[in-house]
C-alpha cells in the first residue's frame, strides 16, 4: 500500500443483490490521466460513485476492497470528506442545480475547496466557457444540454481538486466544444491534477490518457498504456469503431439479422 495517487484495490460493489463491480483494481498515479472504457452498464459510473462514496444514494454499497489516496483510505469516509481530501467528481448526466443560478452553481462547486483560489478559479472557468459568464444570472435548469454540461465541468474545476473524476464530460457537446474540454483536461492535468476519465468518445479519451482500462460487466478485462490499447483490435472494433469498411460490413451483417418493425394497424 501507500502507493501515491489514487489506488483502487479489489473493489466489489452491489446494488442490493445486483453485483455491479467484481474485484476491480486500478491505479491513477499522481499527475496522470487514466481512462476507463466500457460499454453501457459495465460499471464505470459505479466505480466513480464508489470512489466518491455516493453509492448509498443509489442503494448500493461496497462489499469488499479498498480505495486509497496517497496511502490514505477513502472508503469509510463521508462523501464530503472525500472532496475535502481532494477528489472531485463531475457526475454523469449533468446534474446541475437546476433551480440555482449559474453563478451560484459555481459557488457551490467552490464549497469543498479552499477559499483562496476562488476568484482565480472563477476567472479561469469563465475564460474556458464564456457562455457561463454571460449567463451567470440565469437559472441553470434553463441552459441548453451542452451548456449544462459545461457548467457541470466548470463547477468541478472550481474546487481545484487533486484528483478529478470525470463521468462522460463530452456528453452532448458539439465537436468543437468536446475538443475544448479535452484541452481543458490536458491543461489542468499539466497543472498537477490527476484525472480519471470515463468517456464514450473513446478516441478522444485514448488520445488524452496515458493509461487505459477496459471494464466489461463489472470486471477489468484489459488494461495498459493508452496507446497500446488504442492499437488493439478489440478496442478498435468495439470502442473506436470509426466509419470504415469493417463497420460497413458490420452494419450489413446486423442488418441481415435485424428484426423489422411493421406498421401498427390498430
Amino acid at each position, binding site marked *: 500500500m501507500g502507493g501515491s495517487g489514487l489506488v483502487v484495490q479489489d473493489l466489489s460493489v452491489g446494488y*442490493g*443483490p*445486483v453485483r455491479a463491480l467484481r474485484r476491480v483494481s486500478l491505479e491513477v498515479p499522481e499527475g496522470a490521466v487514466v481512462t476507463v472504457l466500457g460499454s453501457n452498464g459495465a460499471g464505470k459510473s459505479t466505480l466513480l460513485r464508489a470512489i466518491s462514496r455516493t453509492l448509498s444514494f443509489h*442503494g448500493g454499497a461496497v462489499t469488499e476492497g479498498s480505495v486509497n489516496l496517497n496511502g490514505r483510505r477513502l472508503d469509510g469516509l463521508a462523501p464530503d470528506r472525500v472532496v475535502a481530501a481532494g477528489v472531485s467528481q463531475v457526475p454523469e448526466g449533468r446534474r446541475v442545480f437546476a433551480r440555482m443560478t449559474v453563478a451560484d452553481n459555481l459557488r457551490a462547486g467552490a464549497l469543498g475547496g479552499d477559499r483562496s483560489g476562488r476568484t482565480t478559479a472563477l476567472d479561469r472557468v469563465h475564460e474556458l466557457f464564456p457562455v457561463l459568464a454571460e449567463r451567470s444570472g440565469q437559472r441553470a435548469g434553463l441552459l441548453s444540454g451542452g451548456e449544462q454540461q459545461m457548467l457541470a465541468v466548470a463547477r468541478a474545476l472550481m474546487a481545484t481538486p487533486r484528483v478529478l473524476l470525470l463521468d462522460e464530460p463530452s456528453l452532448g457537446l458539439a465537436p468543437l466544444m468536446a475538443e475544448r474540454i479535452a484541452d481543458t483536461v490536458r491543461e489542468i492535468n499539466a497543472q498537477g491534477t490527476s484525472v480519471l476519465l470515463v468517456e464514450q468518445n473513446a478516441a478522444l479519451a485514448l488520445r488524452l490518457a496515458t493509461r487505459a482500462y477496459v471494464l466489461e460487466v463489472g470486471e477489468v478485462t484489459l488494461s495498459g498504456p493508452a496507446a497500446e490499447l488504442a492499437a488493439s483490435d478489440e478496442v478498435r472494433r468495439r470502442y473506436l469503431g470509426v466509419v470504415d469498411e469493417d463497420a460497413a460490413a458490420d452494419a450489413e451483417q446486423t442488418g441481415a439479422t435485424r428484426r423489422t418493425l411493421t406498421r401498427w394497424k390498430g
Partner: protein
Amino acid sequence: MSEALVKPLRLVRTRRTRTYVWTAAAVLLLALPFYLDRFWLQAGLFAMAAAIGAIGINLLTGATGQLSMGHAFFLAVGAYGYCVFAADGGDGLTGLGLPTWLAAVLAVLVAGVAGGLFSPISGRLSGAYLGIATLALVFIGQHVMFNAHDLTGGANGRDVPPLNLFGLTFDDRELLVAAVPFGSAEKLWYAGLVVLLAGALFARGVLRGRPGRAMNAIRDHRIAAGVIGVPVARHRAAVFVLSSMYAGLAGVLLALVFQRTVPDYFGITLSLEYLAMIVIGGLGSVSGAVAGAVFVSLLPQLLTRYSDALPLVSAPGTGGIAPGEASRYLYGAAVVLVVLFLPGGLVRVAARRRVTTHPGEER
C-alpha cells in the same frame, strides 16, 4: 408488478394460499356483526369509511403526486350533502327529501363537482404550495359549516336521515337476524363492506390500467407526460374529482355511522390523519390505503378501550399518561417509525416477505 416475476409454480401455490386467506377473511368479516358489540362494529365502520377516503387521497397524492391537505373538506361535502338531499326538512333545516340512496349518489357527485371547481387551483399548483392551498378548503369548509345554519345546522350539526335501501332502513329499529338484534351498526356494516370492496376494486383497476400509468407519469415528469400524449391538466383535474368523490363517499358513510354531522370533525387534524394513513400504509396503492386507514383509525380506539388494562396508561384523572395522550404518542411514533424503517409503508412488509425468495427484483 411482482406477480410478473414470480415463477409459475410458486404462482400456483401463492395463488391458492391467497384464495384461502381471502375466503377466510371474507367469512370472518361477514360473521363479525353476529359477535361483536356495537362499539367494535362502529370502530370497524369508521375504519371502512377512512379506508374509502384514504383510497381516494392515495389516488391523488400517492399516485398522481398532488399533495392534498383538504380532504376533510370533501368528506364534509359528502356528509352534509347527503343530509341536505335526504332530509325532509322536518327539523327546520334545508332538506330536499329525496330517496336516501339517490341522496347518497348525489352527495358523492356534489363532492366530485366541488373537486372539479377547485381545478383552476389544483391544476396550477404543485407540491407544498398545492398542499397548503388545499388547506384553505378546510378553513372555508368550516366557516361555511359554522355559518350556513340553514344547510348545516351550525355548531351542533344536523341529524342524518338513515339510509333506506330496498325497503330496509339502516336505523336502530331492531331487526332480529338469527336471534341477534340488528341495529344500525350491524346493518351498515354490510353496506360499508360492499361499498369499500367496490371502491377498492375500482381504484385498483384505475391504478393498474391506462389512467393509472398516466397518473404516475404526471407525478414523475409532468412535461414529458404531456409530450407523450397525456392531457395533463385534464387528467389532474379528473383525478382530483375522482379523489373528491371517494372522499364524498367516505363522508356519506361516516355521516350514516355518526347519525349526526358536526363541523368540529371536519378539521385540519382529519386531513392530516388521512395523509398519515397513506404514508403509513403505503403511497400509491389501494391495499396501502386500506391498511393505513385501519391502523390509524383503530389505534386510538383500541388504546382508549383498553386504557384500564394497559400498564403505562393510567385512567383519566389519576395523573400520569392519559390514554388520549398515549394514543397520540403511539400514533406520532408510528408515523415516524413506519416512514423511517418501512419505507413504502405497511404493505411493503408483506411484499418484501414475498420478495425475499426472489432476491431483490422488486426494489
